[in-house]
């Protein structure tokens, strides 16, 4: 005789599940969230491993505790704190320190809390394979996506092109997988780096490589023949890049260009060539001379409307083109004064040598070096007019310009860092050889927050970056190496 309670249970169990289709776009949202989470987990692993490397010899207990993090319950994943985040390490560690996740057969999980899903060794090993920074790291470009998280690209030993990441704004470094690109050499190699967020990154100049997983893996974008990426910026899910048709050799990859086009892609699909589109109004801009270049800068939109930001492109002929972030037509917003044309790019970077452009808090800052002297101009009307600020004291040749907060302006030069805290009214030499700075000055300076900034010595063999944490009042070198 059938138990009626059995019937009732069976009726419930056998009832058909009514399908609930996903809302449009759900898969893309899920995929994007997964990418970011994977990258955060990678960083957490990398940061943890860095501790292991330091303490591994004398503190095996630390290794054990970190190793045990490999086996997580699927429904109970522990995510890294949002303030840290991304980038996956690359170089294989000493074999004695390999913190592979323990297979369930070695440490059976408790039935209630750890249902076992077997992961193949490759699932986590790319992120846990090692955290050592490449030896003799020579940094050429640096990028930050938060007040803690950033990455630097350069050449190291033995791999060549190498990346290092930091999750404490340059206090410590760990290795990150790098594209197999090599140093800039004509049409090949990469020298510059940007990350849009903890997952999506771009190594460029002259080639273009893209990662969607915080550097764990890289894909090269197949550029049209003769095209080199000379500048690239990211904001609000978009990536914009200056594609130049150039013929320069060696590290002068951005020299002898005859025209430039601004291209854009959604960051999530930028690894595919077909995702890139030329931006109307900024197509085939004629160089005018073999030493011309173009400058790209972006203004981020308001927090409530990120896409309201603006693209600014200083064309080789001195026109300032401006438009929306998402590929709308650029229009002529103004024209920079004579003597502020971008001029020939600097060796190995693609960065123009005679005009630097940056945006901060509603103002466009233009540093002109064409006359042989440094002149700062600040436009508060979107590039229509360019009032000249008082003369900048001559401390070498300008290489890079940064603005931060409401009135901080910093110029990297071949002699040091020149700073103004009053929007260019007065200046001081903040770092120089006489004050312990690198003898050949700096190739780049940038501000991440009003107080945090970074500068790269022109002499990459110093293996260091310089950091400020007090709005440029003081700068300290940070050696890019494992600790």
């Amino acid at each position: 005789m059938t138990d009626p309670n059995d019937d009732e249970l069976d009726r419930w169990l056998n009832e058909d599940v009514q399908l609930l289709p996903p809302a449009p776009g759900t898969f893309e949202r899920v995929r994007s969230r997964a990418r970011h989470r994977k990258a955060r987990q990678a960083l957490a692993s990398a940061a943890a491993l860095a501790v292991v490397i330091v303490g591994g010899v004398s503190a095996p207990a630390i290794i054990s505790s970190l190793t045990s993090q490999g086996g997580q319950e699927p429904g109970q994943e522990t995510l890294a704190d949002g303030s840290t985040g991304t980038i996956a390490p690359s170089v294989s560690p000493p074999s004695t320190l390999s913190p592979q996740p323990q297979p369930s057969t070695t440490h059976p999980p408790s039935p209630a809390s750890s249902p076992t899903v077997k992961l193949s060794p490759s699932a986590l090993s790319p992120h846990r394979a090692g955290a050592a920074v490449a030896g003799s790291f020579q940094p050429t470009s640096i990028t930050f996506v938060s007040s803690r998280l950033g990455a630097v690209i350069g050449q190291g030993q033995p791999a060549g092109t190498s990346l290092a990441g930091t999750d404490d704004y340059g206090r410590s470094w760990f290795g990150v997988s790098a594209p197999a690109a090599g140093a800039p050499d004509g049409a090949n190699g990469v020298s510059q780096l940007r990350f849009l967020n903890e997952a999506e990154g771009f190594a460029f100049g002259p080639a273009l490589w893209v990662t969607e997983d915080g550097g764990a893996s890289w894909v090269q974008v197949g550029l049209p023949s003769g095209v080199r990426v000379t500048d690239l910026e990211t904001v609000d899910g978009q990536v914009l890049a200056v594609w130049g048709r150039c013929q320069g050799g060696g590290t002068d990859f951005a020299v002898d260009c005859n025209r430039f086009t601004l291209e854009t892609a959604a960051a999530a699909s930028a690894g595919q060539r077909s995702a890139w589109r030329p931006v109307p109004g900024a197509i085939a801009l004629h160089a005018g001379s073999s030493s011309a270049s173009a400058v790209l800068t972006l203004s981020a939109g308001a927090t409530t409307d990120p896409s309201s930001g603006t693209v600014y492109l200083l064309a080789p002929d001195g026109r300032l083109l401006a438009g929306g972030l998402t590929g709308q037509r650029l229009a002529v917003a103004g024209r920079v004064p004579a003597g502020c044309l971008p001029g020939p790019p600097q060796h190995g970077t693609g960065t123009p040598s005679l005009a630097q452009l940056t945006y901060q808090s509603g103002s466009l800052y233009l540093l002109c070096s064409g006359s042989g002297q440094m002149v700062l101009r600040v436009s508060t009307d979107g590039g229509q007019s360019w009032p000249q600020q008082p003369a900048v004291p001559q401390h070498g040749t300008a290489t890079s310009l940064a603005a931060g907060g409401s009135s901080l302006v910093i110029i990297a030069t071949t002699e040091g860092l020149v700073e103004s805290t009053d929007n260019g009214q007065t200046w001081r030499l903040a770092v120089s050889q006489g004050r312990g700075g690198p003898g050949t000055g700096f190739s780049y300076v940038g501000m991440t927050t009003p107080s945090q900034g970074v500068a790269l010595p022109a002499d990459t063999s110093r293996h260091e970056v310089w950091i400020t944490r007090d709005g440029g009042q003081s700068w300290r070198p940070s050696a890019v190496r494992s600790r």
Partner: protein
Amino acid sequence: MARLRLADRAAAEELFNASYPRLAGWVRRLVDDDETAHEIASEAFTRLLARWSGLESPHSYLYMIATNLVRDHWRKTGRERKAIATMTAGAPRDPSYHPAQDVDVRTLIEGLPERLRSPFLLHYYGGFGVREVAAMLGKPEGTIKADLYHARAKLKSAIGSAGD
């Protein structure tokens, strides 16, 4: 590498398209509203894709995640305590009960001890065989069979009590 990534994406999208509606519907029978079901299904897929490349059995992993997320949801909403009270006190049952009203049986399932609940949901409800459930939970098959027997017995008993 690019080809591999594209293949991964295609496989992930194929699994998503094939499995999401049923998974979300499966979760829907265990929670109160469509929105929560979609949230849990989306989160389960997010966690799946974050570990995608190394999984031997993505489908099992997906349901395992969803089971744990449902459990967490129950905990948050305090259903578990209520269900335990129902199991022990034999709360009066709605005479108009129909199996389509999942909430009654669901409440009883929520009240199962955790060691019995997961195998029950995965086997009877998720449709996984005993061997698969054993692999997913890291238990011997015999233990799973015993857990299923005990889970079923407890539910039958609870249904009987509720119907008295």
